[in-house]
């Protein structure tokens, strides 16, 4: 997803954030460390330590640009070990799932919506952090 840049809303030398190709809620974003890290446990690993901080900063940006009222941060670790989710991404990442005024119930986090190229472009253009 990072190579062609079509999904990227933010990138620096150690982290990047993208709109995934499949979402459960419009403007859902994923935040990754660039290094391939499979566990959050290495307490002294700077790329893990600062992942949360980068995620908070991106959420702040989303609040400003989208008038996002609420959000959920989600991180799943080692789900690829479980029989029901063997294909879960091994590379750790935070999800930011926004919620807007008027959305009385929580998004259906299991919903799968495939974005078209135009939809992706619209999201990236709106959320890109220079």
């Amino acid at each position, binding site marked *: 997803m990072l190579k062609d840049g079509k999904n990227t809303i933010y990138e620096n030398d150690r982290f990047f954030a993208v709109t995934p190709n499949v979402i459960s809620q419009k403007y859902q974003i994923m935040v990754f460390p660039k290094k391939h890290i499979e566990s959050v446990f290495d307490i002294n690993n700077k790329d893990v330590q600062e992942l949360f901080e980068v995620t908070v900063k991106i959420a702040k940006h989303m609040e400003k640009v989208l008038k996002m*009222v609420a959000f959920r941060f989600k991180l799943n670790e080692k789900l690829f070990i479980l029989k029901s989710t063997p294909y879960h991404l091994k590379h750790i990442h935070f999800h930011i799932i926004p919620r807007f005024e008027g959305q009385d119930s929580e998004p259906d986090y299991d919903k799968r919506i495939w974005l078209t190229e135009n939809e992706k472009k619209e999201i990236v253009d709106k959320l890109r952090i220079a």
Partner: protein
Amino acid sequence: MKECLICKWMREKENVVCYIGNAAIIISELSYVKYHMLICPKKHYESIFEMPKKEYNELFDAMRRVGELLENRLGADATRYALNNNHLKVSKSKLHLNHIHLQVFPCFGELTDITGKYRKKLSPREIEEMKKEILKHVPKG
């Protein structure tokens, strides 16, 4: 004004397993899975954006330590983490707590459902037993 439930638990020391710096590790009374825990700042913050960087980073560090405990000593195979920010501003549900809390859901052999379909209320005795079980494995200091 009604007291925040999380502040009450910390004040009365109910449900609190231990503290890691400024983060309280609390056993969730409404349990989605065994060892379902909440990681909360001692201070009553209602949004992550109110928190100084140092404090929300402490929350994340505490979360990682709890995750490691669950997977290396308490038998979890995987862990799911979630933080809802400001959901009370849009939600009619009375179940949301407005004190910031990072939820930790261990997975034992299968994907833990975090929709709340299978949650159950723990009795004070069950909470006390779970606390003792967890504390057996918490490294001293």
